């Protein structure tokens, strides 16, 4: 199959001795098949493994949170033991009907875990970048912000303006100059890539 | 492939339905011109058409002129889909005929699917009626063909009966002719003109009669729906062609009487009609008068006879819902000069009115049996109008008369087609080795067959073996016809259509070709045969220990007649296994019969005679009553037992689709006349149940003072006539399985697959249930089975009628040059006649009480006294009562060459002016 050609579900892309199956494909009887419609992408692996073949959907549509994946969520409810949130975006796609997630107290920070206080880490309405730890129980995903790059990315002060990060645990309102505690994410654009539309979604969300 | 949509808006029961249907137009529809049926040079010449031409008939031509189209000279016809659809809608018999014409490769009738062809399709124009649209479609198709045929210098001729359509077609530049114009100018076939059906307008007005107008179909339907009219199939009385009745649809199915020409209002026997009830004071009773067509043409019941205090529901026909006219056999009336073209035709079936036809061949046709079809029955014509179809041969000739009775009873008697014969095994067929592997080998058993003399299609054999442990093994072996007749083959289809073999006095119309019926499947004693066996282990008291069924190979040790078998049984010296077996069977049969009768099985009787036929002329030279020996009933008992066992098995195995035979219990009212007649002679009979009837009939066998000994047989004959018809049915569609006459809870036919198709179906079911054969789709489809059963019931009835008619014909031939005095018995007393049965000849006839033996009315009403309750009639002081013995003179009346018949004249008792 040629690179960038279009395939449809059920189409045979090649043998599994030829390729490693990637996203949008599956292996059956020793062959790699497409499972979604889209264009075929191949990535050769430098370490000598078989080249990876995956199908890139033409639409950027629904994705569901994957373990180890990065999600963007919005805080909804805080307790002393955990913070509840709605997952509003997975891999850059925005969800209409959100999945729910929780961040437990011990997963907020990598260091000084026992000193974490939920109320000093998040506030309802904060937009948080988090990693999926596990599928949790039947009701919600277990998320973690215990990395420098994870944490609050957008938070609004009491008068409604976006606050500016001061330190790893503090943010300040540019107008009232009021300081608040947060588990702030270190902005790293190459690590966390925000597609255009999700940013606009974020601003929309924050103005509501 | 293009498509368009047809949108129709229909209303039904007030609701508005919008039905959208797709209609695909195609460019790949065969027009038959290239390499098809129409790729040739039509030879038929017509003075009005200059070139080689093909015919395109319109719907009305097909509907009314089938006899012309069926003529062998009419070939190369283009049948349009539009026409076929309309014909199908309007008349299913015509549709069947046209379909078979289209299927016949010699006729070269090509069906063109014009409405789906992109070149000939046209949508309905707004406001156009269906008729107009169809006419237009036909013209478009004709134009299309004209264009296509142009390069070949051929034309398409549109044949229509509709003047307006014809004119329109001409205006559009088409060759259009009316059928009359066309037929008149055909070169070389003048006889075709007689076959032309007359259009309505060409009929002269008969001033003597004016029938009430028929209501429109829509009015009739509305009336039936509202309950104002009743719908039903008209059945004309056998005795009086001006009296009929319908049985209304619905659960109660009440009977409505229709009397008189005007009330019948042009309805013909078997038409589906709408009837309006007359006011109750005009209700009347079925007349006891026998109308003899030949003596008094046009005799009608006078008003005085109609007057009765109470009557049965009586009505008049207001509309015809469906005609079921068919071609009728009969003769041309000899009145009038043969030079004239207008003639009256008298059908052989008494229930059909006479038909007016036009023919130029009257001279040759008089004295011949001919076939005539009805075309129409206008209001001002006393008789329906028809046309001549074909001549069968001279009246009185045996072959002609046989042909007539076969045609009249719709018995297929033409030779088997090549396709059917191709299904036969080679004539030197012998049992292949692999059959021995899957069949049980019964060739060593003492198997024998017992049949009437001269029987060549032996389908059953028996054996009896003492097992030595106090039980006996009894086997019934039936010819394995289904081994040769595989489902779905032409031979199977043909057998299913014929349904039964028909036994006429002098010939047999086979259901399957002779190679099977008289050789491979006939269980003769000349070699090995395939059989389907039913084996019982029985105790000496005929109690069944076990039953099993298997396919087998047998070798009959002896094919005997009933008489031979009886002699062997009686021959004390014979000790061979076959004879021993026969004795054993005979003993068991008696026990079985006894048990059966105990349960309430009826032993009825019908006067049956056998004709001895001259070996050369095939004319009957003598006749004798069928004798009943023990051996007859022995074979019968075991066949009944086999049938019952098989019925149980297949019903168990295939509860939804077993083919069974049911004999409904007759309603008590059927017995009224019969019980009344018996009562008038002091015999109290009870017909509440079959057992009661059997017991009370047996009681009549005891001699009683003042009554002759034959009365018991007479009563049995009459009781038979009160019975319902036994019918085949599919077990999945009925709940009542009982067989009244045999007093069996379940019954079927298994034992005569050579001559009955029902048995073939039963064989297949049984084979499937024991794993000896595969099932197939039609076998397990209950509606399919019910359809086959319906046809079988019809064929059986027709076969019976044909058999009866054949006996009648032979009786006539037998008495052709004889005058015999013979004693007979009065079996019915009517208002003006008595019905007499002569047991010796199995002959039944009417002796009129109001006219002398020459047919002149001599007795006036005062001298005639008829007491219905007592079943007696007194003429000039001489009393005749039912079951009285009389002596009659039997003679053959050939005074009317065209209408020969048997005449009965009273000899004893002497009645002045009536008896000889």
């Amino acid at each position, binding site marked *: 199959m040629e690179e960038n*050609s*279009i*395939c*449809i*579900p*059920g*189409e*045979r892309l090649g043998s599994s001795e030829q390729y490693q199956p990637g996203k*949008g494909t*599956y292996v*059956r009887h020793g062959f790699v*098949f497409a*499972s*979604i*419609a*889209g264009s075929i992408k191949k990535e050769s692996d430098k370490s000598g493994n078989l080249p990876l073949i995956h199908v890139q*959907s*033409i*639409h950027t*549509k*629904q994705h*569901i949170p994957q373990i180890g994946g990065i999600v963007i969520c919005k805080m909804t409810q805080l307790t002393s033991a955990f913070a509840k949130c709605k997952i509003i975006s997975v891999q850059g796609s925005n969800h*209409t*009907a*959100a*999945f*729910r997630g929780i961040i437990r107290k011990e997963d907020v920070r990598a260091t000084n875990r026992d000193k974490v206080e939920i109320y000093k880490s998040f506030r309802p309405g904060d937009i948080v970048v988090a990693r999926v730890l596990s*599928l949790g129980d*039947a*009701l919600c995903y277990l998320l973690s912000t215990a990395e420098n790059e994870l944490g609050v990315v957008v938070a609004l002060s009491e008068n409604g303006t976006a606050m500016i990060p001061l330190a790893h645990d503090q943010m300040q309102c540019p107008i009232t100059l009021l300081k608040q505690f947060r588990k702030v994410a270190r902005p790293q654009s190459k690590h966390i890539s925000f597609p255009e539309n999700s940013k606009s979604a974020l601003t929309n969300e924050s103005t509501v | 492939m293009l*498509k368009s*949509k047809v949108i129709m808006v229909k209303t039904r029961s007030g*609701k508005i*339905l*919008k*039905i*959208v*249907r*797709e*209609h*695909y*137009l*195609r460019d790949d529809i*065969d027009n038959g011109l290239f390499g098809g049926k129409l790729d040739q040079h039509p030879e038929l010449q017509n003075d009005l058409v200059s070139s080689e031409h093909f015919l395109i008939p319109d719907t009305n031509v097909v509907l009314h002129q089938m006899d012309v189209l069926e003529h062998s000279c009419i070939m190369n016809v283009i049948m349009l*889909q539009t026409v076929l659809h309309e014909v199908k809608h309007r008349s299913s018999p015509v549709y069947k005929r046209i*379909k078979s014409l*289209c*299927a016949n490769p010699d006729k070269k009738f090509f*069906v063109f*699917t014009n*409405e*789906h062809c992109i070149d000939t399709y046209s949508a309905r124009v707004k406001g156009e009626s269906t008729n107009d649209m169809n006419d237009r479609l036909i013209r478009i198709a004709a134009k299309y063909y004209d264009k296509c045929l142009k390069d070949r210098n051929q034309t398409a001729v549109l044949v229509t009966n509709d003047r307006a359509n014809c004119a329109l077609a001409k205006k559009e530049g088409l060759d259009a002719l009316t059928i009359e114009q066309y037929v008149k100018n055909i070169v070389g076939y003048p006889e075709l003109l007689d076959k032309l059906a007359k259009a309505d307008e060409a009929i002269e007005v008969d001033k003597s009669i004016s029938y009430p107008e028929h209501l429109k179909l829509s009015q009739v339907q509305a009336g039936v729906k509202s309950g104002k009219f009743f719908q039903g199939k008209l059945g004309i009385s056998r005795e009086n062609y001006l009296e009929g009745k319908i049985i209304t649809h619905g659960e109660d199915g009440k009977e409505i009487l229709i009397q008189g020409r005007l009330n019948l209002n042009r309805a013909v026997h078997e038409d589906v009609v709408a009837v309006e009830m007359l006011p109750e004071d005009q209700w009347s009773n079925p007349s006891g008068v026998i109308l003899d067509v030949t003596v008094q043409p046009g005799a009608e019941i006078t008003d005085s006879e109609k007057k009765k205090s109470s009557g049965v529901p009586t009505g008049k026909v207001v509309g015809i819902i469906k005609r079921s006219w068919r071609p009728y056999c009969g003769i041309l009336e000899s009145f009038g000069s043969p030079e004239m073209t207008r003639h009256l035709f008298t059908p052989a079936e008494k229930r059909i009115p006479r038909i007016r036809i036009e023919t130029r061949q009257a001279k040759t046709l008089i004295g011949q049996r001919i076939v005539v079809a009805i075309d129409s029955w206008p209001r001002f014509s006393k008789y329906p109008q028809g046309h001549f179809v074909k001549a069968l041969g001279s009246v009185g000739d045996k072959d002609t008369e046989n042909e007539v009775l076969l045609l009249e009873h719709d018995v297929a008697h033409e030779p088997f087609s090549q396709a059917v014969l191709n299904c036969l095994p080679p004539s030197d067929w012998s049992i292949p080795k692999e059959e021995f592997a899957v069949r049980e080998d019964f060739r060593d058993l003492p198997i024998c067959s017992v049949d009437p003399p001269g029987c060549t299609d032996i389908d059953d054999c028996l054996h009896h073996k003492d097992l030595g442990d106090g039980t006996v093994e009894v086997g019934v072996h039936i010819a394995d016809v289904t081994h040769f007749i595989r489902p779905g083959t032409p031979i199977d289809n043909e057998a299913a259509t014929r349904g039964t073999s028909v036994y006429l006095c002098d010939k047999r119309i086979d259901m399957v070709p002779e190679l099977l019926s008289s050789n491979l499947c006939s269980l003769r004693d000349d070699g090995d045969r395939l059989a389907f066996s039913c084996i019982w282990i029985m105790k000496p008291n005929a109690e069944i220990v076990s039953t099993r069924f298997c396919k087998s190979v047998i070798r009959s040790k002896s094919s005997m007649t009933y008489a031979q078998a009886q002699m062997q049984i009686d021959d004390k010296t014979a000790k061979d296994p076959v004879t021993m077996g026969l004795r054993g069977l005979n003993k068991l049969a008696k026990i079985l019969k006894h048990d059966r009768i105990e349960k309430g099985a009826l032993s009825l009787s019908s006067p049956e005679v056998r004709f001895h036929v001259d070996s050369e002329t095939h004319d009957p030279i003598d006749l004798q009553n069928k004798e009943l020996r023990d051996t007859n009933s022995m074979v019968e008992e075991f066949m009944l037992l086999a049938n019952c066992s098989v019925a149980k098995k297949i019903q168990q195995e295939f509860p939804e689709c077993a083919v069974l035979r049911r004999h409904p219990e007759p309603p008590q009212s059927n017995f009224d006349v019969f019980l009344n007649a018996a009562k008038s002679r002091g015999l109290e009979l009870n017909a509440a149940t079959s057992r009661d009837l059997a017991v009370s009939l047996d009681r009549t066998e005891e001699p009683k003072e003042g009554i002759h000994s034959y009365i018991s047989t007479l009563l049995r004959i009459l009781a038979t006539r009160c019975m319902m018809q036994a019918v085949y049915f599919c077990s999945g569609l009925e709940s009542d399985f009982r067989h009244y006459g045999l007093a069996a809870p379940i019954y079927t036919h298994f034992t005569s697959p050579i001559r009955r198709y029902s048995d073939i179906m039963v064989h297949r079911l049984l084979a499937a249930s024991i794993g000896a054969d*595969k*099932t*197939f*789709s*039609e*076998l*397990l*489809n209950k509606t399919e089975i019910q359809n086959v059963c319906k046809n079988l019931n019809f064929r059986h009835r027709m076969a019976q009628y044909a058999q009866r008619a054949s006996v009648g014909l032979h009786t006539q031939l037998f008495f052709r040059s004889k005058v015999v005095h013979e004693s007979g018995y009065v079996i019915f007393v009517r208002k003006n006649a008595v019905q007499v049965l002569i047991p010796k000849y199995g002959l039944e006839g009417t002796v009129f009480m109001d006219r002398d033996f020459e047919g002149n009315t001599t007795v006036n009403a005062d001298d005639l006294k008829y007491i219905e309750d007592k079943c007696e009639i007194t003429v000039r002081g001489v009393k005749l009562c039912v079951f009285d013995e009389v002596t009659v003179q039997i003679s053959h009346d050939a005074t009317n060459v065209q209408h020969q018949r048997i005449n009965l004249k009273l000899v004893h008792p002497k009645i002045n002016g009536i008896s000889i």
Partner: protein
Amino acid sequence: FELISDEGYRFDGRKPSELRRVRCNMGVFTQADGSAYIEQGNTKVLAAIYGPHEASNNMRSRVCLDKCFINCEFSQAMFSSAERKKRSRGDRKGKDMSAHIKQTFEAAVRTQLYPRSQIDIYLQVLHSDGSLYCACVNAATLALIDAGIAMKDYVCACSASLTKETSLIDINHVEELAGCAEFSAAIMPKLDQIIYSELNGRIHQDELGQLVDAVTNGCKDIFAVIDRFEVITDNTEIAVSPRSLHS
């Protein structure tokens, strides 16, 4: 009552093994995650897909930890048949249909990729003229592809009936009414697997093979048609039209 004339044409002019005209469209709704519209002759069906998303509140009990569950809702417009009739959502026929479609797609969608989530398939019949199940399945397949949900293969469905030993495929309402047995099946054409089959009425077992063959061929024809015709006539969005890009 003849379903097929001696010349081999059906009521509407088709031959026994011909499909009705198939027209389809994808991405007809912007709100749904995936949507499609299909016409098979006069049978017209709209399909909309929502998901995969977290199970809605009233479906919590159906959540599976290792795969998604499919929720199917089938409804028929009250003007969809000859007679205007009010149809409630939960009538028996609708429930059966929903269950059958759900079963079909549970076999085709790679549900294990979407644990703990729900995929909604909404089907709306605009006009019914026979072979409803088949049109619904075909519409839903297109909508699922539109939604980018991973499937093992296309799912194509086709119906067939048997008369006079000839099998008629893609039967319309008139042919359904004739009372012959109706066989419907959904197959995955490229994997050559039957994932759903249903028989209404009785046929003999010997005839089943013929019917299955006819239906399989019909499904493959449908596949060929929707594969080729997947072009959308409205030019709003990209939408998948893989084959047309190919050729």
